[in-house]
């Protein structure tokens, strides 16, 4: 088995685990961590292909993904903190509507 096959399979397993985490957990913080897992799995796939094809484009894509992940984490955590201020409890089942 070559290294790209192995890293791509690792990436696929981590992506599936991240999906399971988003569906399974009720705590939005852990759901966010699962989303980060999925983003990282995709990053690993990009880097594997970049290494195997011998080009650096894949790494540039990973940098973009990193930027979007940072922005998403900041805005998402700000929303969670704002929700906590309103309700004193964080559980995604309680959030039925987004009130202004």
């Amino acid at each position, binding site marked *: 088995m*070559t*290294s*790209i*096959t*192995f*890293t791509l*399979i*690792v990436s*696929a*397993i*981590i992506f*599936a*685990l*991240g*999906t*399971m*985490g988003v*569906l*399974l*957990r009720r705590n939005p*913080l*852990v759901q*966010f*961590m*699962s989303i*980060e*897992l999925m983003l*990282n799995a995709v*990053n*690993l796939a990009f*880097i594997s292909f*970049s*290494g*195997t*094809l*011998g*080009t*650096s*484009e894949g*790494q*540039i894509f*990973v940098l*973009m993904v*990193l*930027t979007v*992940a*940072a*922005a*998403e*984490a*900041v*805005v998402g*955590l*700000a*929303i*969670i*903190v*704002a929700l*906590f201020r309103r309700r004193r409890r*964080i559980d995604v089942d309680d959030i039925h509507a987004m009130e202004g």
Partner: protein
Amino acid sequence: MEQVILVILGVLAVASAVGVVFMPNAVYSAMMLLLNLVSLATLFLLLHAQFMFAAQLLIYAGAILVLFLFVVTLLNPEGENVFKDSKQLQKAGAFTGGIILGIILVGSLIYAFTGGPQFDFAAAQPSPAQPYAYGSVEAFGMGLFTQFLLPFELTALVLLVALIGAVVLGKRR
């Protein structure tokens, strides 16, 4: 030797991903995420992506994870044990969905690498004089500031929007 380290890191990454999903306490989940990020960063180094190794450690493990831990300890959510959950249907659906997705992804990968016509990766490799030059900071910077200059500049806009959004959401009313 390199193969052995690759397999160890891959197993560590998958095990810590399982930890993130199933740990009852959010702080433990964050710690498992840290382990996952560090093992993935080391995998990047093994795949000769030196700059991405440093960026992964600095941005993910250094900045994003600290932000996560800060919010987790600030809000202190009550723990949840996914194995003692009352919502059986939701739990079963999540398990089946995740496992089916994993089987589809891994199965299609194995099919792509064993059956059918194969892509010749060896022919796509660069000149043997500098076999791993694509991972260097020099090659990365050349690509980023010539071919991908516009997307690179647009990331500044994305970060600005995130910054303004965080300030607006964090403001007390």
